[in-house]
Each structure stands twice: as C-alpha cells, then as structure tokens.
C-alpha cells in the first residue's frame, strides 16, 4: 500500500501535467498558436520529402543492381552516348532555373510573372521528355534494344523510370500553372499555393539532380 503521494511528473512522459507539450502544428507547448495556416500547409512539403525518400530508395536499388551487374559481367558492351542527351541535360538544368525564378516571383506576389515562368518550365520539361524520346529512337535505329546487352537494358530502364517520374513532376507544374490564374483572397489559400509550389519545385529539382546522377552513372561509371 502506497502511503505517500509523489509528483506525477515523470521523466519521458512530456513536460508534466497541465502543460501542453509542443506538437507538429507550430505550437511550442506554451499554449500558443494552434494549427496556424502555415503549419497546415506544411504537410505538402513534409509529404514531398517523405515521398522522395522512397524514390531515392528505388533508384538506389536499381543503381546498386547496375553496379553489381557492371563489375561482375563479362558480357558488358558500353553504349555509344546519344548526343541528344547533352541537350536533355541542358534542358532540365534550365527548367530548374526557370521553376526557381517562378517560385521567387510567387514569393514577391508577382502572379503574372509566376504564371509565365511556370509555362516556360512546362515547355522545357516537355522538351526534355522529347529529347529522351529522340535518344531512345537514335539507339533503336542502331539496333540497340532493351534486351541487346546489359548496358542498354539499364539505359532504357533507368531513363524510362526517370522519365515516368519526371512526367509526374510535369503534371505537377502544369497543375500549378493552371491554378495560377485563380485569384486567391484568403491567407490559407495563399499558404497552400506557396506550399504546393514548394513541394513541386522540391520534386522537380530532385528529378534534375537524379538525371545528372543517372547520366554520370550510365556514361562515366562504366
């Protein structure tokens, strides 16, 4: 039988009774602002980073397969690099810059400029996908197909997987562009727009960096 009472403040159970602890919504635990619009919109940024972690893991698995296969195989024939890939690289780098410009215009509340730069990004993104198509056609015209040799298998697989992911990003940028014409009055909607623009551009820059990585892996690693 317990005869004395002790404080119910316990180590490891948050800052004791009566005091709300900090949470994920911008509350510092001091009873301050609860679920302000900014933190509500933050879920788009958080979700995007979390999603990119899984995209990273998928490309990690594919590139580890690439590395294992390339160092252990005796049947490896290196592909000639399709020249059009240089254009691809320039296009996707430029698209990252234009998207970043668009995002800054949004921060400066220049909606018209924001829409214009988004449109340019869409055009550059489509250009990238078209240039990829040219690269695949160039290779297949030389008789190099998916199953021709391990390097070509990985080339089609990695560029294809990247293109599918980039097409998703293109869908996102197009969505931002179409939505950019709407005039928003509420602060909540504005925060949401900024958060979606952030999320899409995080994704787009990631796809840009992923392309550079794949390009180097495919043509410089071996």
């Amino acid at each position: 039988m317990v005869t004395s009472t002790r404080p119910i403040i316990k180590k490891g159970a948050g800052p004791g009774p009566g005091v709300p602890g900090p949470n994920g919504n911008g509350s510092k635990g001091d009873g301050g602002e609860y679920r302000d619009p900014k933190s509500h919109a933050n879920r788009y940024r958080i979700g995007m980073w979390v999603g990119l972690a899984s995209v990273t893991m998928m490309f990690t698995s594919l590139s580890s397969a690439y590395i294992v296969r390339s160092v252990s195989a005796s049947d490896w024939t290196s592909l000639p690099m399709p020249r059009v890939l240089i254009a691809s690289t320039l296009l996707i780098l430029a698209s990252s810059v234009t998207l970043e410009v668009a995002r800054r215009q949004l921060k400066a509340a220049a909606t018209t400029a924001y829409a214009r730069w988004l449109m340019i990004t869409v055009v550059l993104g489509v250009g990238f996908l078209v240039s990829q198509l040219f690269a695949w056609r160039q290779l297949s015209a030389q008789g190099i197909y998916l199953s021709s040799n391990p390097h070509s298998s990985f080339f089609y697989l990695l560029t294809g997987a990247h293109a599918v992911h980039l097409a998703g990003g293109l869908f996102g940028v197009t969505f931002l562009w179409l939505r950019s014409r709407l005039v928003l009055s509420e602060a909540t909607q504005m925060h949401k727009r900024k958060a979606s623009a952030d999320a899409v551009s995080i994704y787009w820059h990631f796809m840009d960096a992923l392309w550079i990585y794949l390009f180097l892996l495919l043509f410089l690693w071996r």
Partner: protein
Amino acid sequence: MSETHEGAHRHPAPTGFIRKYIFSVDHKVIGIQYIMLALAAVLVGMIMSLLMRMNLSWPGTSWPILETLFPTGAPGGVMTPEFYLSLVTMHGTIMVFFVLTTAPQGGFGNYFLPIQIGAEDMAFPTLNMLSFWVTLVGFIVILLAIFVEGNQGLGEMFAALGPSFRGGSGTVGPIGGWTGYAPLSALGRIAGPGQGAGMNLWVISIAIFCIGSLLGALNFITTLLNMRTKGMSLMRMPLTCWAWFTTAVLALLSFPVLLGGGILLLLDRVAGTSFFIPGGLYVSGILSGSNPNFPLHTGGSPILWQHLFWFFGHPEVYIAILPGMGATSHILATFARKPVFGYRAMVFAIFAIGLLGFFVWGHHMFISGMSPYSAIAFSILTLSIGVPSAVKTFNWLGTLWGSRIRFTTAMLFALGFVSLFVAGGITGLILGQSSLDLAMHDTYIVTAHFHLVMGVASIFGMFAALYFWFPKMFGRLLNDTIGRIHFWITFIGVYAIFVPMHIMGIVGMPRRFASFGEYEFLKELHPLVMLVSVAAVITIGAQLLFYVNVFWSIFKGKKADDNPWEATTLEWNTTSPPPHDNFAGVLPTVYHGPYEFAVPGAPKDFVMQTDIEAEVPGGNGHNGHKH
C-alpha cells in the same frame, strides 16, 4: 472535464452510400476496409494451409473436390507436387502481404493513429483511399495468378497480353515460393510448370502492392509529424503511434527496393533482359540460346535478386510485428492498470529494432555462397536485435509485475503475444548464427520459427487489437465467452502446431516438400505430422468462431460505452464509434502522458490524456486521495 478548442473541418461528412462506405476518404472507413480485406485474405491463406496439411498427412489420397476445383492441379483428385508448391507460394504471399502487412498497419493504424494523436483525419485523405484501392487491385491480381494457368478461359484472356503470358503449363498458380528466387522465377514458361503467366501476375501483384504500401506509409509519416493536436508532444504519444510510425518508415524505405527488384524480374521474364539470368543455363533439357523458346542469356546474377528481395524481406518481418508490439504495450498497460514500464526505453527499442532490421538481410542467404566474413557480420548484427527485443520483453514483464491484471479477452491475446514472441524469437538466436543455419536452413525449424514469431505473434497482436478496439470501431462489444474459447483453443493450438515442427526441423525434414514417403529417416516422424495436422484443423475451426463473433457482434453485440476499458488515450475521449471528424468539431488538448494509471493523488485510478483537473503540482497530494 476536458478543455477543447476549434478544429478545422476539412471535408464534410458524405451522405451517399458509395461515398460513405465504398469510395470513402474517411480514415476510419478505410481502416475497416483494410481489416475486411485482411479477413478475406486470411481465410484464403488458411484454406491453403489446410490443403497442404491434407496432402502431408495423407499423401496420394484422392480428394474428389480437388479435381472439381483444379482439374489440372489435381488430376483424379490427387494433389500433384506442383500443386502443393503453388499452395506453399500463394499461402506465403497472401499471408505476408495481404494479411500481415495490411491489417496491423493499414487497418488498425489507419483507424487509430489519427484519433490517438488528436487529428480529424489523415494528412492526405484521397491518397489514403487510393492506397487501399491499389492494394485491393493487388489482391485481385494475386487471386487471378492462382487460376490463370489452370483455367482455360482466363488463361486465354491473359495470353492476349503477350507470349510470356501464355498459360497451360498444367498446374495451378505460381510455384516460386513467396521469395520467387531467380533464375527459375526469371525464365518464364521454359522453367517448367507454374513459372508461366501465373508468375508474371505474381510479380505484377507484388509491384502493385508496393505502390499501395508506399502511398500509405507517406501518409502515416506526414500525418504523425504534421497533425498532432495541442499538447501531443512526441513523448506523449501512445506506443502504438510510435510503432505505426516506425513501421511506416520501414515500409517507405524497403518497399521501393522490392519494387525495383520486381521491375527487373518482370523485364527478365517478359522483355528478354538478363539481370538475374546467368549464362550457360541448362533448364528443362534445353541450353540457353539453343532454342527459340529459350533465348540466349548471359552474365546475370541470381544472387542479386536475393539481395534485393531480402533487403526488403527482412524489414518486412518488422513491418508485420511492430504494430503488434505497439498494441501489446498499450493493452498490457491498460489492463495491468500500471504505466508502461520504461516508456522511453520502449520508444528507443522500437527504433533500434527498425534500424537494425535494415542491416541483417544477409542472414537469409547464408547458404548462397557468401563470404564467411560477411556471414559473421550479418550474424552479429542479427543477434544484436536480441537486445532491443529483450528490452521490450522485460519492460512488458515489468509492466505486469505486481499489477492486478484484468483478464479481458484483449489482455489474454496481448499476453499470448508476449509468450509467442519469446517462444518464436528464441530460435532466431539459433538460426541467426551462420554455422548453425548451414545445417538448419530450409528445414521445418525455419518454418516453425517464422510462423511463431512473425506469423502467429503478429496475428495475436491483431486479435488483441481487435478485441480491444472493437467497441470503439463499432459501438458494440465482441462476445467475451466466445472470445475466451477462441483464445484458449488458438493459444494451445498454435503451440501444438509449431512446437513439433521444431523437432521435425532438427531431425532434418526439409520444408516445401509435398511428401516424405521416399525418405526412410523421416517416416518415423509421420505421427508428429499427423499431430500437427489435427492441431491445425482444430485451430482453424476456432477461427470460424472468431469470424462468427465478429460479424454477429457488429450488428447484435452488447452496446459499448465510450470508454469501456477505463483507458486513457484520446480515442476513448470520443463517442463509440467516433463521428466523421473524430472529435465532433473540437479537437482535444493533451495534458498528460499516455499511460497515467494508478497515479497517486488522482481521483480515479486512471488519468485521461485530456484530464486537466488531475494536475498535482509538486505532488503534495492536494486532492487528498491516497491509495
């Protein structure tokens, strides 16, 4: 009294039947949909294990019903070895993916994570709906895989997809095992019966399942990080939330690897690449490259598939069991009426198990010809998982120590979980050592080990969770008498099934064999085989009681209060079942840790997380209540 404040209504309650119960974006409905999917899948998996037991106990017997259902798989009603192997494959795949991964995480996690952190829904409700429907499509595809080879009509439909989808290899379903080892799984029809169209559908189903799980995991993590209510600091979350969060992280990082591997495997099968197919392969009497049916392959690595598969496969084990650990911790504390012993240690143990789970996949591959040095590294890392596991076990025992336990059905299943986790986990220390595993690999002791620790223990976690949360989900209690009968038959039954399997394994009985009649040294084990089968029939019979109990109680069970177990966490603050936005428009504020039971000075023996008047500054006992 609980202090409340305004919460945002993000989507109004739907009114039409279809939006409300079928294509619902409400996490509670989606959670129940996941549980129903698991209940359907587990029934299919159990029937398959029954069929396997029939064949092992009475090999060569003619079962007329089998001939009616599977004319190609069981000609004359006698099960062919290929049919048996396809049962092994489908039982494993369905149980691991569509039961052990869906119910604990997608089911209970979906339903209770948002409520327990005080949110009105998941962060991305539409994505949540999508993740369930994608998973359901995966389940339909895996069911098709069973029939596509045996059934002429279906077989022809799929043959239209391309030459590699042509069925007619004379068996039912894929036979690659749930691990689908290359190179046989990568070759297509040439590799023999059960490696044709059904195997394609198997790979596609797994890939679809990966995508569904990834969407779910993304949602869980974002919800937990972004949507906790006021006062819900990380260290005030129930251990269930920690478990679901860690599980989501594991799923997020391991499923993409399987997806990558699955894409490579599918390309090998349908596009003629050689990622996993080595050169000079001689299969079914044909040399690679000597026949148009078997084109030339060179240089692929079958071991690569094992690495990719097990890099996913081992975290998958923890994806199955961590939610059970969370539920068990939660339920033990509630019915022992004591705080969880070492809350912080429990959180770190969950994380440690999750983290170490990523570095031990090699222990599945000790006999793949890996370097003994890597094997030792994998062994040491594997055995080190015993440390956080022991921390959890001792903390569960510490929670129970000196308590006055309320033996509800949920509590019985939670105690059963602890028992099974220890009993099944202890053989992990044996199998995790490369020197011992070389002898025991692919014998029944492996089957016994993972069924106890990952299969049955996880299922017990789910049973505990269902008996515990059923009143919250449906507003009615499950029948307690049937529940207790269900518990005792299942608890004794699973030990009766799996303890003899340890003995068989040590004797050297290999797993995945359709019959053992040709092996002199195994003939003496036949009584044990029969014992296992009888126990399996009885145990599975008891599960029918459970099904009846669930579906009867949903409609006719005893009405439940809002807080029938006198529990502390947020889900018991709202009505049973909760309204569409969980807290009727006003989100709760949290003032306490999740397990404030038997608090000295408090008016009751439990303090709810939202209770404000239990504040005892300095512990001078101002309420004057002592116990």
